[in-house]
């Protein structure tokens, strides 16, 4: 009878399969056109957002009423007359291109920050519900049901009216409304994994619940949560734009795609580009993230990747 493998060896093996699974997923992603397109779109927008102060032609808030509603590619009438409004100007004479570039910053920040916030809260609640079970579980799941019954946008509208507009307030609102999916996913995953032999074994060996959750349950739930996260970033970006469109999102001093769209809506007859362009930016970013998330789901499904 051969001796059981040493702890180190087993860990090495585990790492090896884990790494090669990740590599397989990566290779799948790179072979998939939709995934590559999504990745490129997201990467470009991220660069634009990070480099906004450098690449924006002018200050997105500098106004000049003489230059209002200039068509794309037209020269400024007053001020720096050599300046060309590549994408036109809005009703206050602000450069649309600069505003769109800064808008990417708000969208990505709100999307990422609120999805991360929801992830943190959702995972804690899901872990508690799944691991402790019983009354705690019942209570937390009732909380989930309650949250689901609210129409998210009405809820967000009401809370934003309480808190007042602001980027941080938006993140808070989205975090409060967005944690449910993570909690449900993680709870389901825990209920499934909790009864498996390797978890029972480590519990018998005296592992703390926190360490079991961190070492065994989270890695197993990782792919489901990652996919959820990517979709949620896209949803939160859309929600931010929707709230800013309704006038309760980010304050007027910060350029946001939703706000630009709402301002441009009055001018659909005379200055159509003000409605068309911000929407295109928004849709390309959201679609990019969806494409990526969709491919990620396929790539991380061990049954599909062969």
């Amino acid at each position, binding site marked *: 009878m051969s001796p059981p493998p040493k702890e180190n060896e087993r860990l090495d093996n585990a790492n090896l399969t884990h790494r090669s699974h990740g590599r397989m997923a990566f290779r799948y992603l790179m072979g998939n056109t939709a995934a590559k397109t999504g990745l490129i779109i997201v990467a470009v927008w991220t660069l634009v957002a990070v480099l906004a102060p450098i690449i924006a032609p002018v200050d997105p808030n500098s106004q000049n009423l003489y230059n209002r509603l200039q068509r794309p590619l037209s020269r400024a009438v007053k001020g720096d007359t050599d300046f060309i409004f590549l994408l036109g100007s809005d009703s206050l004479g602000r450069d649309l291109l600069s505003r769109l570039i800064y808008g990417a910053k708000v969208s990505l920040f709100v999307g990422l920050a609120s999805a991360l916030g929801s992830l943190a809260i959702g995972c804690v609640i899901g872990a508690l519900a799944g691991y402790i079970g019983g009354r705690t579980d019942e209570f937390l799941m009732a909380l989930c049901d309650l949250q689901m*019954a609210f129409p998210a946008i009405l809820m967000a*509208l009401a809370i934003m009216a*309480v808190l007042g507009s602001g980027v941080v307030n938006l993140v808070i609102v989205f975090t409060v409304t967005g944690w449910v999916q993570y909690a449900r996913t993680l709870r389901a995953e825990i209920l499934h994994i909790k009864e498996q032999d390797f978890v029972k074994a480590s519990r018998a060996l005296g592992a703390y619940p926190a360490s079991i959750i961190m070492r065994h349950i989270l890695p197993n739930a990782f792919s489901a949560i990652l996919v959820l996260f990517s979709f949620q970033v896209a949803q939160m970006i859309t929600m931010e734009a929707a709230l800013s469109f309704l006038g309760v999102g980010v304050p007027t001093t910060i350029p946001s795609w939703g706000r630009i769209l709402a301002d441009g809506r009055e001018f659909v007859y005379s200055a159509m580009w003000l409605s068309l362009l911000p929407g295109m930016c*928004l849709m390309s970013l959201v679609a990019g993230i969806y494409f990526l998330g969709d491919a990620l789901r396929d790539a991380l499904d061990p049954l599909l990747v062969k």
Partner: protein
Amino acid sequence: MLVLLAVSVTVFVLVRMIPGDPVRLMLSIEATDEDVERFRREIGYDKPIYHQYFIYLNNLLKGDLGASLRARRPVMEMILERMPATIELASAATIISFLIAVPLGTIAAYKRGTVFDHLFMFLTMIGQSMPIFWLGILLIILFSVQLGWLPTSGRGSFSQLILPSITLSTFFMALIARMTRSSVLEVLGQPYILTAVAKGLKEHVILFVHTIRNAMIPVVTVLGLQVGTLLGGSVITETIFAWPGVGRLAVSAIYNRDYPLIQGTILISAAIFVIVNLIVDLSYLILDPKIKYQ
């Protein structure tokens, strides 16, 4: 019921956190402090907040949602008055989504891997990522501004229903279509379909009796859970197209700090959510005869 009670507490507390004195807002600028205090007593806003809640709950059980602070009319009456418009829009959108999405999703599943399928997947992805307010504006630009075929706003004629219902339905169409495709694919892999084919059943019998009926169960479930999104979408759609429904009522209530009206609209939305999910549960009976409720 419990959910609705919890919703009523949450909304009540939340709404009272809105800064600004609603009593002062309701009166004209010339009102003196005395007037404000007198009016506050009159509408019961001088009592402690838990007391106000119990009065509210008591009235609620009698079907009384209080009176709007601005319009000075019963909230229930105002909501019921706007309800037909929202139901009209939401059901038009749901019917359009189902009529287009289910056949397309089924065809895509049957023609898996073909050009049609790839195009289908691409278009539904675009449909899902299309921000609803932008879609609304695009449709206005195309059909109202450029072509001048359809009106931009209002309710009454059939032509005014077209743009809002298309706007509201697009996201659901994409969602239902994708769900239908994956669900049909799963059903097609089941042994009972193989049995049906082996029995020599006609193709349309297999399609309608065995495949679509079974594939609809997960689709309907998701639809029930998405009612919240539908209501939220109708808030935006109603705002864009000046559609006189509950969504617009809610938005203006929030802008006006009309507490009873905010409470009323959110509570009614939650009630609709609960009721629709009950209907979804009951529809399983039709879709799957194996499920029986005692």
